[in-house]
């Protein structure tokens, strides 16, 4: 009985052109120990909701239409650098070889934040994002599995992975897609973990972000996979617009999705 109804809803939503935006996954909170923890203490994460898919070009087009100050031609440099929506032909259209249903990238942190706000949502915190991203298809924390880490590492090697439709990678334990293997994603507090990019030096700093020397000397693939994500985050600033960097939104679990949009 359940399935046909769901299917029906899907069709309705798709017909109105909002195939993914109201699809959020419920994440049951808990605690986890981040790899980078300078104190190895567990971090707790509350219940929350997160978009099942990264925000797509098509979805972002609608945002720009309703919020002209985020048009390519009108955005302020302070909030988005010169590469903002670089893969768009103009304010409304994509370049010809781009996919409408691929994740929107070349968006700054400010822009991503504004988009989520417009949706009545927010960017996930770094801890929320990492918490969801620990999962593989079957388990909530797959970080110790070889296959999980190999998938991430092999993605680092794959050029132009932004050129894929959302949902093309695996659905994880929480029902969330594309956490790995497609694009990097903004988090609300992406810069709360700062590394200098000089790993040999970071190791000696007081605010050491890694498990002792494990991140550097270790043969632990798990650390390598995560290490590069933190290195990436620490290399960016809020107005950077990067080809391999997109985002998705989150929401506290007691809030409803923006009713204004559902009414559309």
């Amino acid at each position, binding site marked *: 009985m359940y399935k046909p109804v769901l299917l029906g809803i899907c069709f309705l939503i798709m017909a109105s052109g909002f195939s993914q935006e109201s699809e959020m996954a419920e994440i049951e909170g808990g605690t986890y120990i981040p790899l980078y923890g300078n104190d190895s203490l567990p971090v707790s994460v509350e219940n929350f909701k997160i978009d099942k898919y990264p925000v797509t070009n098509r979805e972002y087009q609608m945002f720009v239409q309703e919020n002209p100050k985020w048009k390519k031609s009108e955005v302020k440099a302070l909030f988005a650098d010169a590469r903002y929506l670089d893969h768009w032909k103009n304010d409304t259209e994509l370049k010809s070889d781009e996919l409408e249903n691929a994740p929107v990238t070349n968006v700054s942190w400010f822009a991503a934040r504004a988009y989520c706000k417009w949706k009545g949502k927010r960017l996930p915190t770094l801890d929320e994002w990492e918490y969801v991203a620990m999962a593989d298809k079957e388990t909530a924390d797959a970080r110790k599995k070889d296959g999980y880490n190999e998938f991430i590492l092999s993605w680092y090697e794959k050029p132009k992975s932004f050129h894929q439709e959302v949902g093309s990678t695996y659905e994880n334990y929480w029902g969330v897609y594309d956490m790995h293997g497609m694009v990097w994603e903004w988090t609300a507090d992406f810069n709360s973990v700062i590394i200098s990019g000089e790993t040999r030096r970071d190791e000696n700093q007081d605010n050491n972000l890694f498990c002792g020397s494990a991140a550097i000397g270790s043969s632990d693939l798990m650390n390598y996979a995560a290490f590069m994500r933190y*290195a990436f985050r620490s290399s960016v600033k809020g107005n950077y617009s990067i080809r391999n960097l997109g985002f998705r939104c989150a929401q506290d679990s007691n809030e409803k999705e923006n009713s204004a949009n559902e009414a559309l």
Partner: protein
Amino acid sequence: MATLNFKPTILTLFLSSLLILFASCKNDEDNTKEAEEIEVSQTMNAELTAPPLVPKPTGRRKAKKLVVDMEVIEEESEMTDGVKYVYWTFDGTVPGSFIRTKVGDEVEFHLKNHPDNKLPHNIDLHAVNGPGGGAESSFVAPGHEVVFSFKVLNPGLYVYHCATAPVGMHIANGMYGLILVEPEEGLPEVDREYYIMQGDFYTKGSFGEPGLQPFDMQKAIDEDADYVVFNGKVGSMTGDNALTAEVGETVRLYVGNGGPNLVSSFHVIGEIFDKVYVEGGELVNKNVQTTLIPAGGAAIVEFKIEAPGEYILVDHSIFRAFNKGALAQLKAEGKENKKVFSGKIEEGIYQPEGGGIQEMPVDEDELAASRPSDNPDLEEKMELGKNIYGRTCVACHQANGQGIPQVFPPLAEADYLNEDVKRAIDIVLHGKSGEITVNGETYNSVMTAQNISDQEVANVLTYIYNNWGNNGTEVTEEMVKAQRRN
């Protein structure tokens, strides 16, 4: 008594060496100090070259402000025929562009990270005096550019590389190159200069396994390299891409080793290095056969070409050369010099290594039991042939008969092989040297005569003919016998 007599000598030796040590220390300090004081006159854009080329010498020019513009590019390219790899590069080549500076130069370094790249990168130049060699100040996100500057103080040949986490992976994917700091008066003039850098690569599939091969972290940690190559790929400097020189010329090679793991035993087959700037520094050694180049280190070698012909550059940890790709060619043209090298005095095939020569003592009974039947069927022949191939042929012709481009001809889908079975038998029995054309490519190498029995020849050829797209000929012992010369 003798020992007593000895002591003063030792003491004197010790003291004098101490003196020398101090003197040289003082000297070095002075030099660095002086270099620091050198004023720069103008701004100039650095000439950057892709390997194996080297920018023009700095000659007598004064120290300048030198602008170096470099871009990090992550791109897919070919490791060897049919094998693709995603390289991370400085300026799109492995190794990255050669930077040529002079003591006292102020380098203004612009490091750009291409917008399509996935990762942040940076650069650590071993020629920099300062924490991290510039790494910290050069950390740059995709689609961005950083500028930092440094003054070069110590002459020598230095490695630069990416030092972003995980460092090993960035280096293993090709992020290294060389920066030369010439002394004030410049290096002595030579006729030819080339840029070569060794690197080891770790792929999911083993050597030659076709397709896009991802980096294998575990193999890298185990230091179990699938490829050891010069300038980023197998055959980067062989055949049409071989380095060239003329007889009588002095050749200088700037040789670096990016690693990430292996130390190179750099050697040129057929040449003795007249001069080696050991580890790329000031110390010059003369008449060197093989020089050791550490990972993350370099050497400058010079030699005068006395005789025409082909010189083979190798890592003399020799399986790397013939089985993993660490091999390059230098072709020298010009008049023969009989005084130096007589050329061929007698024609013959050199055959020290064939299957049967190195014999180990064996248990006769066991041997008899293990001996194949006298009239093996096709299946048995294939099995036996495979074994012979594995121990005799595979080193040159490779596991899947693909050969080594430009050096050893392929056996897989090889027109030369399929055309004429008698000729193939003859070559196995008697060896072959001189030019042949296989699948449109010319090869000019030597195959030694194989010292194996008629039946073994029949088996191995049957194995080859019934594999890798060949025509399925079954070779018999009689056919082999017919080709024996008495």
